[in-house]
């Protein structure tokens, strides 16, 4: 593969508005959940990780006034504001103009502006923004991207698939810089759906733990800038990726984990790595009984059961279309800081394969990392990051 460098990033979750803020909270072992009983969001009280509304607005207004003083705040939805703040921060870090004809914006989201279906949102000036491509156009135009954005919407692997697609586009020589931004909000729509599946944990989720009892939802946005030219001081690359499908069930994972293992094997092969050269695996780890069990089997098949593994979802929940991007950025920070993060919510192993789940933050050389994800529709994704 042609080198695809990581050039900049940003995370927005309940734990902060920059990668630095969020990682600082991670290091302190704080999680971002609060129990909400706001009946406009959820009929049953559940822990949720929500982005601070007033702070998001304040950050957005600052950017709006400096970039587009002619535009009105009311023209943007809350999700669009979050995307714009996140992209603005990530691009600022690279210190270059990334919007020309050799650049592209890739947006990952599952539900986009789904809030516009709600009764209270009927007076939004442009109801057409329920279309994901239209939302992406608004974000792309805000920054002045010459090329029209690409929108990936592939359930819970959307973020990893967006990164994979972007890395392949650079590898193919079609673009030099790609801004990959993943984001989703929590709405009554999403929360009621997961409740109807009886998939939500009454306490903050406990990935891979024996007492895990379902997932916790979070909202957030993550942006990664990848480039064939610009790199950070710690040189990291995206060096392999692969997607597979279970061909088994639309809402339940594979019984064997073979298909996720196949994605992992293909991604490692492309990166030119053997399993024992992997320093860390950032798992999907939703904390539903079946997902974590399947992942443990897949990691065993891929000969990765002894490699340190965590799930970041115990900190800020399952952020849906943002998850793959945000968790990749946290992985990238592990590589930059040579620091592996404890898997929050984990106490006693509760999956059939004895995985090496990280119990305490540990300083150790972190060289090559794997991020994996699986989702509804039977999809699996794996992506490999390498330190050069």
């Amino acid at each position, binding site marked *: 593969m042609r080198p695809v460098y990581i050039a900049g990033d940003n995370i927005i979750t309940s734990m902060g508005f920059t990668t630095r803020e969020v990682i600082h909270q991670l290091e302190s072992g704080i999680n971002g959940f609060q129990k909400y009983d706001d009946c406009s969001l959820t009929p049953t009280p559940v822990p949720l990780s929500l982005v601070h509304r007033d702070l998001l607005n304040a950050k957005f207004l600052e950017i709006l006034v400096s970039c587009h003083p002619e535009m009105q705040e009311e023209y943007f939805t809350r999700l669009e504001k979050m995307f714009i703040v996140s992209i603005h921060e990530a691009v600022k870090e690279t210190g270059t103009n990334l919007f020309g004809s050799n650049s592209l914006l890739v947006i990952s989201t599952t539900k986009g502006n789904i809030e516009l*279906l709600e009764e209270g949102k009927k007076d939004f000036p442009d109801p057409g923004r329920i*279309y994901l491509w239209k939302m992406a*156009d608004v974000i792309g135009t805000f920054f002045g991207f010459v090329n029209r954005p690409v929108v990936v919407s592939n359930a819970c692997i959307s973020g990893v698939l967006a990164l994979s*697609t972007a890395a392949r586009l650079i590898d193919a020589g079609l673009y030099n810089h790609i801004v990959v931004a993943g984001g989703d909000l929590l709405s009554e729509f999403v929360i009621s759906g997961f409740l*109807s*599946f009886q998939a939500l944990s009454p306490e903050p989720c406990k990935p891979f733990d024996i007492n895990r009892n379902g997932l916790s939802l979070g909202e957030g946005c993550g942006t990664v800038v990848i480039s064939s030219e610009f790199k950070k001081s710690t040189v990291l690359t995206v060096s392999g990726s692969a997607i597979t*499908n279970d061909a088994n069930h*639309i809402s339940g994972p594979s019984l064997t984990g073979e298909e996720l293992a196949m994605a992992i094997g293909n991604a490692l092969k492309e990166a030119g790595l053997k399993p024992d050269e992997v320093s860390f695996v950032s798992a999907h780890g939703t904390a539903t009984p079946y997902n974590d069990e399947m992942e443990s089997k897949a990691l065993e098949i891929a000969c990765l059961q002894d490699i340190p593994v965590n799930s970041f979802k115990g900190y800020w929940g399952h952020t849906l279309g943002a998850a793959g991007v945000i968790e990749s950025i946290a992985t990238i920070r592990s590589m930059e800081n040579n620091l592996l993060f404890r898997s929050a919510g984990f106490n006693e192993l509760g999956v059939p394969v004895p995985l090496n789940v990280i119990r305490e933050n540990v300083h150790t050389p972190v060289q090559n990392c794997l991020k994996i994800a699986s989702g509804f529709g039977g999809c699996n994704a794996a992506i490999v990051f390498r330190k050069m």
Partner: protein
Amino acid sequence: MNETCFITQSNIIRKHALIRNEKVELNNEIFVNFATFIKALYKKEAISYPKFYKMDNLSKLGFLGAEMLLKDNAFLDRYRKEEIGIVIMNSSSSLDTDMAYNETIKDKSNYFPSPSVFVYTLPNILIGEICIRHKIKGENAFLVTDQFDPGKVIESVKLLLDKDHAQACLCGWVEVLGDKFESVLFLIEKEKTVKEFNPARKYSPFTIESLTQFYQNK
């Protein structure tokens, strides 16, 4: 973008016509709505797959398009199931089912969210349904664009074929919103495979011109 590829099968499903491998079959029946249309097409194609009735409209349409591409065709025998990629795009994602699901939660006195509806509020479930039916395990991608975009279809599929992430692809456009719908699907294979199984036959090259011309078939 090095591999030369060909369109080895294609079809379009529209309200007034089915177009298979560029042959047009007109629909003379009057269909009241999407539901009656898709049921009639399912019967006409003589498919027996009980899960079809559980699918949402987007999955039903794309599923039938894929059936029409893959039946009476040795495509599936030519590849291992993990070598086949699926790339599908549309404009409204799963909005058709999103609106149906929203109806089940908007009235607190008549609140009945159902997991069997909610799961279809993701467009890639259609890809999952096609994979389950044919045991296809390769690369997947669902992308959203404002209209059928031949350039994007080619770009996304070539990313898979040129680097051997897939050896062949099922790809195209499946859009449903209310009673407006359209499915445009293709099988794309590499020149070296095509030469092996049918060296004499001329297939359309996988180019923007071919896709545009085929799409404009009325």
